[in-house]
């Protein structure tokens, strides 16, 4: 199908504007003076800015395109994303402020940094970093295929899609290298405003265009496609899958390097608590997005590629200007998270793989330069994989959540359990990853989310073998343990006395 020239021009104009803002955001040299400045903005961001950043970070092109295509093919299973992200923020309320305080006190910029300091183990930190980078690259690829699909629909007949995709990702890598986290933060505001405006516009206008209003549309769904509106009772994925997928994904959300990067930019633990409070409201957009998938099911002709459900729906429903705004929203939802993900992955690579494993002496200006330079490697790898193996990506991403959640005991449980040992944590992590992979590749999941089996095995291993090593851990201490357990207990005593 031929694209629309007006729509294409608007999309490209908005992408270029955002790239420009990305560069302007870094005009002050201080933004790239150290790893802490470049990757977490010197931890100076207030509540609202963190809200925009985390929101921009987690609601990506893949969220919009993937959820609509899941809704289109699998109906209400797509709604697992709602309890998942609502619970993710709720759970984060209980551990993120604590994690932020440790990171702030010890000048840590990645989750792997925390694990290294908490357990005195470079093996554990590099293991976590390897898992993080390995899972993040397919995720960046997904963003890439998001913008590629969008440009395909918008620009067929006018441009060479591959060339434009490569150029736009190169520009994003360049502004990320240049401005660090400041780049995606300022552009995130524009992206979030566009996302809300466009999604609300579509949800109001599409039912009117195609059905004459919201209620007639719901009536039509109830009579013509009731199977879309509830979780299926039969089939490989039912309610047990829905529940375990929601829970495991919720636990995994802040284990992603890009989510952690967003959180570490906050200026106080209270800014993080307020974010945990308000972020669930962002999910109202998500419910609307799933409904767009249902509309696509009713409106589009049979045989439409589900991957293009949302894009084709936009194409058949709107004129050039509205199409252009909708495409640019999806394009920004692909480019901006990509920039934050690249920062997260580069940071892990430079700090926890290169420094912890290969060259422990590197520091200061050289480490900052290596971290920034890694952006090109990460985005380059994602481009390469994305253009060469586009179909393998979706399953890699599905495995990604199940893989990422395996570091939950090392990062979160260790904040509360003083005698958790390094040995048990490492073995648990390896067992969890192995079980997840085996369940995934053999298909013996018994209707339950793969990562759930891995996480259960992971926890069980840690609890079972921890006593073997606990003697040493009980009497040993270090700066992080001291900060987490010994000082805190003193502080509460003080508070109780004061009260």
């Amino acid at each position, binding site marked *: 199908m031929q694209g629309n020239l007006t729509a294409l021009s608007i999309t490209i104009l908005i992408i270029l504007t955002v790239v420009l803002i990305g560069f302007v955001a870094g005009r002050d040299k201080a933004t790239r003076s150290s790893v802490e400045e470049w990757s977490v903005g010197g931890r100076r961001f207030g509540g609202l800015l963190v809200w925009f950043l985390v929101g921009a970070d987690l609601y990506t092109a893949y969220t919009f395109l993937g959820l609509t295509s899941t809704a289109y093919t699998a109906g209400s299973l797509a*709604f697992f994303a709602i309890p998942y992200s*609502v619970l993710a923020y709720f759970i984060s309320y209980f551990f993120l402020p604590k994690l932020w305080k440790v990171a702030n006190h010890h000048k840590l910029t990645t989750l792997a940094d925390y694990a290294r300091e908490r357990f005195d183990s470079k093996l554990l930190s590099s293991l976590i970093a390897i898992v993080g980078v390995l899972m993040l690259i397919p995720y960046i690829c997904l963003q890439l295929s998001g913008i590629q699909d969008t440009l395909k629909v918008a620009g067929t007949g006018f441009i060479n899609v591959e060339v434009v995709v490569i150029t736009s990702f190169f520009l994003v890598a360049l502004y990320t290298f240049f401005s660090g986290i400041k780049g995606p933060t300022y552009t995130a505001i524009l992206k979030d405003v566009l996302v809300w405006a466009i999604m609300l516009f579509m949800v109001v206008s599409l039912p009117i265009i195609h059905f004459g209003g919201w209620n007639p549309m*719901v009536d039509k769904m*109830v009579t013509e496609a009731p199977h879309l509106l*509830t979780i299926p009772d039969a089939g490989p994925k039912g309610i047990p899958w829905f529940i375990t997928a929601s829970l495991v994904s919720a636990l995994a959300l802040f284990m992603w390097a890009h989510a952690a990067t967003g959180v570490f930019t906050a200026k106080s633990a209270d800014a993080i608590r307020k974010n*945990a*409070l308000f972020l669930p*409201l962002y999910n109202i957009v998500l*419910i609307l997005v799933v409904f767009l998938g249902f509309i696509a099911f009713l409106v589009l002709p049979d045989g439409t590629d589900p991957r293009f459900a949302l894009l084709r729906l936009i194409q058949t429903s709107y004129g050039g200007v509205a199409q252009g705004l909708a495409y640019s929203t999806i394009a920004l939802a692909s480019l901006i998270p990509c920039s934050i993900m690249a920062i997260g992955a580069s940071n892990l690579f430079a700090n926890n793989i290169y420094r912890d494993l290969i060259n422990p002496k590197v520091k200061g200006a050289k480490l900052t330069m290596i971290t920034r330079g890694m952006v090109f490697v990460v985005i380059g790898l994602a481009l390469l994989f994305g253009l060469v193996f586009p179909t393998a990506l979706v399953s890699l991403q599905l495995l990604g959540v199940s893989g990422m959640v395996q570091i939950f005991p090392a990062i979160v449980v260790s904040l509360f359990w003083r005698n958790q040992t390094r040995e048990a944590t490492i073995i648990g992590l390896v067992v969890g990853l192995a079980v997840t992979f085996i369940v995934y590749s053999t298909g013996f999941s018994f209707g339950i989310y793969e990562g759930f089996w891995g996480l259960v095995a992971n926890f069980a291993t840690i609890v079972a073998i921890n006593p073997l090593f606990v003697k040493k851990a009980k009497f040993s201490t270090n700066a992080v343990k001291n900060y987490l357990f010994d000082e805190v207990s003193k502080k509460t005593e003080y508070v109780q006395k004061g*009260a």
Partner: protein
Amino acid sequence: MKKILLILFIVLPFLAQLVVLPFVNRIDPIILGLPFFQFWLFLWIVLTPFCTFGIYQLQKSEGGLD
């Protein structure tokens, strides 16, 4: 009393969004233009922040936050 309230605020979001799903997985009744299952999920997007806020206030009143 405060302790019970705290536990309630912590447990409710999990109970409502995971445990009771088999019972709310239905189309009727349609409320606010949403089939019941979707309405239920929407309701807890709005109610969960209230639970978090309740916990925040309880912790604050006990001086547990800094």
